[in-house]
């Protein structure tokens, strides 16, 4: 090993999760090229890779690595867990989905894994450069996944839109990084903790650009515009991942940066800005979702609204708030990814759009998938005894606890509005006569599995939230609040 190469066993152990993701990706690309017959194992292989990486992640020694630019902690484990869960859902959904569309290619899984790798970098990087690279890895992979169905116009268009807006956004992110680097003299996030920086307008400017850049990933209004179009055109399994994990990672990055920069406490104007983003996202997301006819767009807007709720916790800004965010995302994995899984299972023709009306009568035609979809809808609507309620519960609790009553009230009023469209889906499922006759094809095993898992997850988290909450609390300890 050359002397200048600073790579200790500790670093290897820390990077092991990413390494095995990368390796698996490469392996599948190669297999796809040279042993196409192995394609039917790709899903399994990817799952294995995910499992292995999460195993490594949980076993990795806590602490810093790569010269203090990489973190392993409860927080990263938590983030890694829900990201991995999302990835697993996406892969399980992808398996039958791609089979149906005859697109079961190694690239899909590879890109998914690499995107996941990007997410992992984002959540663990203590260095804006690492984070940025992670972000870009994620983005590039998903630009491609968005456009993955080259034969489908919508897919390509989704790719274009995602790409252009994404590049646009990352330019802002980059400029923000530039400013912060200039002010702090280093790209280490910790460098922002210098007391004299907290109030510097240019630093605020930079932070704001980061907020915007990651807000774009989180699809906060008004940086949300890409989401509906992209979700609509993108292959559903990819959406299942994109709609959850990257958002969580971005929020965690924001939390990292802000905790570093605002050790003394977040300035009121900045908090106001975040709060306004939250309010705008919740309101716009819910209100416009009411008017949606296509379920993927509907879920996109619902996602915008949900990120609004999460952003409440960002505005509240505190340890419990971060814990609430983590809980929320765990709940969001099972609910939202589950919803997309059900959509993928229920809409059997990917080349066509996904109007809600097409679900009519599915409640009786394919009871299981419909039941899970309905459950996901109730969970997203935040009905108690479901995971979604738990997420909302902790977010609103943190808001009330810190005295942000207005935010909380706007939040609940919004969730009232949201019931309007979530129930619409349920009623189409169960209270309309089927449009198409004849028994539907049976669910693929993978679909059964993933739907079952999501349903079980929704109820389990909804009924026994204690463990998750304690876990999230511990994870939140990893960030240096109020130091």
């Amino acid at each position, binding site marked *: 090993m050359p002397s*200048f*190469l*600073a*790579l200790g066993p500790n*670093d290897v152990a820390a*990077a092991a999760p*990413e390494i095995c993701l*990368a390796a698996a*990706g*490469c392996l599948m*690309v190669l297999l796809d*090229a040279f042993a*196409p017959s192995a394609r039917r194992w790709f899903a399994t292989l990817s799952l294995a890779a995910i499992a292995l990486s999460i195993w490594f992640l949980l076993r990795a020694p806590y602490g810093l690595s*790569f*010269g203090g*630019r*990489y973190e392993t902690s409860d927080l990263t484990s938590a983030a890694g867990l829900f990201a991995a869960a999302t990835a697993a859902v996406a892969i399980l959904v992808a398996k039958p989905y791609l089979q149906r569309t005859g697109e079961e*290619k190694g*690239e899909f899984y*590879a*890109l998914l894994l*690499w*995107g996941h*790798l*990007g997410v992992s*970098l984002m959540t663990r*990087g203590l*260095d804006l*450069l*690492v984070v940025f*690279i*992670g972000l*870009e*890895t994620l983005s*590039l*992979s998903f*630009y*491609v996944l968005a*456009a*993955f169905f*080259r*034969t489908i116009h919508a897919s390509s268009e989704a*790719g274009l839109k995602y790409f252009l807006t994404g590049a646009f956004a990352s330019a802002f992110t980059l400029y923000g990084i530039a400013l912060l680097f*200039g*002010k702090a*003299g280093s790209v280490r996030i910790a460098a922002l903790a210098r007391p004299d920086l907290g109030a*510097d*307008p*240019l630093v605020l*400017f930079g932070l704001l650009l980061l907020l915007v850049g990651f807000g774009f990933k989180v699809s906060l209004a008004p940086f949300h515009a890409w989401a509906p179009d992209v979700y609509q055109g993108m292959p559903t399994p990819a959406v299942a991942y994109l709609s959850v994990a990257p958002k969580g990672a971005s929020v965690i990055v924001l939390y990292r940066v802000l905790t570093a920069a605002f050790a003394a406490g977040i300035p009121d104007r900045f908090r106001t800005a975040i709060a306004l983003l939250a309010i705008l996202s919740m309101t716009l997301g819910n209100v416009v979702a009411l008017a949606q006819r296509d379920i993927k767009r509907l879920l996109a807007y619902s996602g915008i609204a949900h990120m609004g709720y999460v952003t409440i916790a960002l505005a509240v800004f505190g340890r419990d708030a971060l814990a609430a965010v983590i809980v929320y995302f765990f709940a969001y994995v099972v609910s939202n990814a589950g919803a997309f899984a059900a959509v993928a299972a229920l809409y059997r023709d990917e080349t066509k759009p996904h109007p809600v009306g097409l679900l009519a009568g599915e409640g009786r035609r394919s009871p299981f998938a419909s039941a899970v979809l309905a459950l996901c809808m109730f969970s997203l609507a935040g009905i108690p005894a479901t995971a979604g309620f738990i997420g909302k519960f902790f977010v609103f609790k943190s808001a009330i606890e810190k005295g942000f009553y207005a935010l909380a009230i706007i939040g609940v009023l919004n969730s009232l509005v949201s019931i309007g469209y979530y129930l619409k889906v349920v009623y189409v499922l169960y209270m309309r006569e089927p449009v198409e006759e004849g028994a539907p094809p049976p669910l693929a095993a993978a679909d059964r599995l993933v739907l079952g898992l999501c349903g079980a997850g929704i109820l389990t988290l909804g009924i026994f939230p204690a463990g998750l909450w304690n876990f999230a609390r511990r994870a939140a300890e990893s960030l240096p609040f109020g130091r």
Partner: protein
Amino acid sequence: MTVRFAFDVAAGMAIVFACVMVVHRHPVKSVLALVVSFFALAVTFVLLSAPLIAAVQVIVYAGAILVLFLFVLMLLNVPAEVRQTPGRPIHHTLSAGAIVVFAAALLAALRSYGATSAPSSPAPSDPADLAPLARLLFSDHLLSFEALSILLLAALVGAFTLARREGSP
């Protein structure tokens, strides 16, 4: 002094050609304008004592990337943008307004608060000596470096996946 003058000229050129790039309606011409602009930027990089980056800028950006652009433009033989009729007045007015405000805010902020803390370390003895840079790259930023490799790989695979014609493996 001369250095400063040179910088101003280079930066000026960069800005001017950037403007050309923006206003010119024909994509190919804008690409060419951008090439020039990037060359000018490369010069400024040198003046900012980052010769390696300048070189990379010339080679990778002006060289590789923009050529790629030209190539694709030719491939798709994209026409010049004809003036929109009736056009999107709302979009343009709003954009113009927003851009002006943003630019004003940005420039003002940079102008008044741009200053940064005094350098901790002494200036590098010889900016052309790349050893420290390389050392830094492979020690502190090793992770980024490796991550970058995956990113490039992903981009490669992705581009390949998308761009190949139907039916081809």
